């Protein structure tokens, strides 16, 4: 349009000068008149009116940016695809990472299963063991037993699967070199001493196993124990829990087992019927439960202790069990247990003894109570009083001690408590004699469970002999 070229094209600079009052009146009039005609100019003038800063510099900058754009025109088309494809890369990368993490988790959780399976596998050979020829089986066991005679620690390392599982059933005893196939069970038992340290762990394993397969386990144990009539099944009651169910089989190791093992050489060949469970409850005359009362089979000196509610159970191939039941402050009682539940044992109070031994019983109950210890120290789930009762009831003091030391001494044992309430990291703080120390450790290991208050809390228990 011709008029286009006629119109004086006011620049930003002109407008700027107009704003700053640098134009003459005539010039101002000119631009104003033009603005009236041209809304574009009018708008621009209005815009410049508000800014007030250096407009010329901005214009220069804009011109530069424009020339950049027009010179690099060809670059523009490529930018957009790059942006979108980059986003695609990001999305793809994230998906791969998530998928990778997912599969990892899956595999990790998957791996947990085989462990469980392995345990069961351990069981089956055990069960089958007795069904095999004893002759064949026994030597193997005997050999291994002998071989490990000297091995006092880490018996868990024993490679035979069945052996390991049976560990928990093995009674303790001295190794008997002259034991052959028949005494396979005893041989295993003989290793029990060294198994001491492992009894808890095995007990841990045995507990669930026993729940499922107690009859079979008991059966095999019975075979291997080599004893005619006994099964080294010891109920390990979990404090606080009412384990009326089939008992776990805990290895009991005392030197007296040796005696027991000597008595029945041909036992292995005797296959009795399947194990029987003897359950019952120990109470006083008023029907109050007696916690941690000791129930021992008189024949093989294998026993157990009742739980905090007085309930106990024993497994044996025999149809009747002759036991001694004792609890501090009460008269000992000998009686015969019948197969099945309902063996109610009532003990009579022994007033003559109570006064004398009362103080010695409360060895641990009367403990110093300074602030720090109380806060962090673990304590028995059923309390110190009951624990003291347990210790007194179930102590099997070594014979030699009785002859050597009169008046009795003490062993001090310290330990931490694991997550599951089991004593760990057991240390002898004050020793009395080797056998005493061992018995002390055994008592603690097999005793009622603990409750821990701090992760690294340590407690000291005194055991009187």
């Amino acid at each position: 349009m011709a008029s286009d070229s006629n119109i004086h094209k006011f620049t930003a600079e002109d407008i700027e000068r107009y704003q700053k009052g640098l134009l003459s009146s005539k010039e101002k009039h000119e631009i104003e008149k033009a603005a009236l005609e041209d809304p574009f100019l009018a708008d621009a003038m209005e815009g410049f009116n508000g800014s007030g800063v250096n407009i010329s510099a901005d214009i220069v900058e804009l011109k530069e940016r424009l020339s950049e754009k027009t010179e690099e025109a060809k670059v523009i088309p490529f930018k957009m695809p790059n942006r979108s494809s980059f986003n695609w890369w990001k999305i793809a990368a994230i998906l791969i990472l998530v998928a990778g993490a997912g599969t990892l988790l899956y595999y990790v959780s998957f791996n947990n299963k085989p462990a469980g399976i392995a345990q069961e596998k351990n069981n089956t050979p055990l069960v089958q063991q007795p069904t095999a020829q004893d002759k064949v089986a026994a030597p193997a066991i005997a050999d291994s037993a002998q071989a490990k005679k000297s091995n006092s620690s880490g018996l868990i390392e024993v490679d035979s699967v069945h052996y390991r599982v049976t560990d928990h059933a093995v009674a303790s005893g001295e190794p008997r070199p002259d034991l052959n196939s028949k005494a396979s069970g005893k041989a295993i038992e003989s290793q029990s001493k060294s198994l001491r340290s492992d009894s808890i762990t095995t007990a841990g394993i045995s507990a669930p196993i026993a729940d499922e397969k107690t009859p079979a386990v008991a059966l095999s144990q019975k075979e291997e124990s080599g004893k005619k009539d006994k099964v080294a099944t010891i109920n390990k009651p979990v404090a606080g829990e009412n384990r009326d169910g089939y008992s776990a089989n805990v290895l009991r190791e005392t030197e007296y087992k040796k005696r027991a093992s000597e008595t029945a050489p041909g036992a292995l060949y005797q296959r009795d019927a399947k194990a029987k469970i003897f359950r019952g409850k120990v109470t006083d005359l008023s029907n109050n439960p007696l916690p941690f009362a000791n129930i021992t089979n008189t024949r093989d000196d294998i026993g157990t202790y009742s739980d905090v509610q007085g309930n106990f159970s024993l497994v044996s191939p025999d149809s009747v069990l002759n036991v001694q039941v004792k609890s501090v402050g009460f008269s000992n009682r000998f009686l015969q247990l019948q197969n099945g539940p309902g063996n109610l044992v009532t003990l009579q109070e022994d007033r003559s003894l109570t006064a004398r031994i009362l103080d010695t019983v409360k060895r641990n109950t009367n403990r110093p109570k300074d602030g720090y210890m109380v806060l962090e120290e673990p304590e028995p789930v059923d309390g110190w009083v009951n624990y003291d009762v347990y210790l007194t009831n179930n102590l099997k003091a070594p014979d030699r001690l009785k002859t050597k030391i009169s008046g009795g001494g003490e062993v001090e044992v310290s330990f931490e408590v694991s997550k599951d309430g089991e004593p760990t990291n057991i240390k002898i703080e004050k020793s009395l004699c080797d056998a005493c120390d061992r018995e002390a450790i055994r008592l603690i290991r097999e005793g009622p469970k603990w409750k821990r208050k701090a992760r690294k809390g340590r407690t000291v228990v005194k055991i009187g002999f």
Partner: protein
Amino acid sequence: MSFLKNISPSSLTDKELVDQYKETGDLRLLGELYQRYMDLVYGVCLKYFKDQELAKDGVMQVFEELIGKLKKHEVGNFRGWLHQVAKNYCLMQLRTPKNLRTVEFKGELVQSEENVHLNGILEKEENFKRLEDCLGSLVAQQREAIRLFYLESKCYDEIVEITGQAWNQVRSFIQNGRRNLKLCMEKNEALSIDRKAG
């Protein structure tokens, strides 16, 4: 068209540049064209955004839009069309709620959007009489402002001095006066046509 390439783009008219751009898509042509009005686009953006950085970005964004739009649309008056594109862009940007601002609205100070070209009308001699009559019909302030501005070629500031009124008011008078004159002139023109006919 090869000879045109030798001629520097700056000597071409707007229309010629538009046509050439449409043909070749050469951004440099568009750039040349845009540079002529970049100042005004910047001003418009400043008016709407009231922010220098936003306005500068706006100028570049409008250019981006031109690249496509110019190819698509038939553009007669590039200048006017560009103005509209710039305004539309600014208004679209302002639509985001956070950008909305409430400003006092003074009706009498709003500038007229009419693209009124009075040049042709004023120059016609036969309209002078009509103009005199119409001027008389104006509100006193408007008449005075118009007279000072157009007939005495005074600028706003001068009129402000003379009349003692505010700058915005002066501008408003002039704009409204113009509109009223135009209406009056058109009405009179219609009447005179009728009279001539009748």
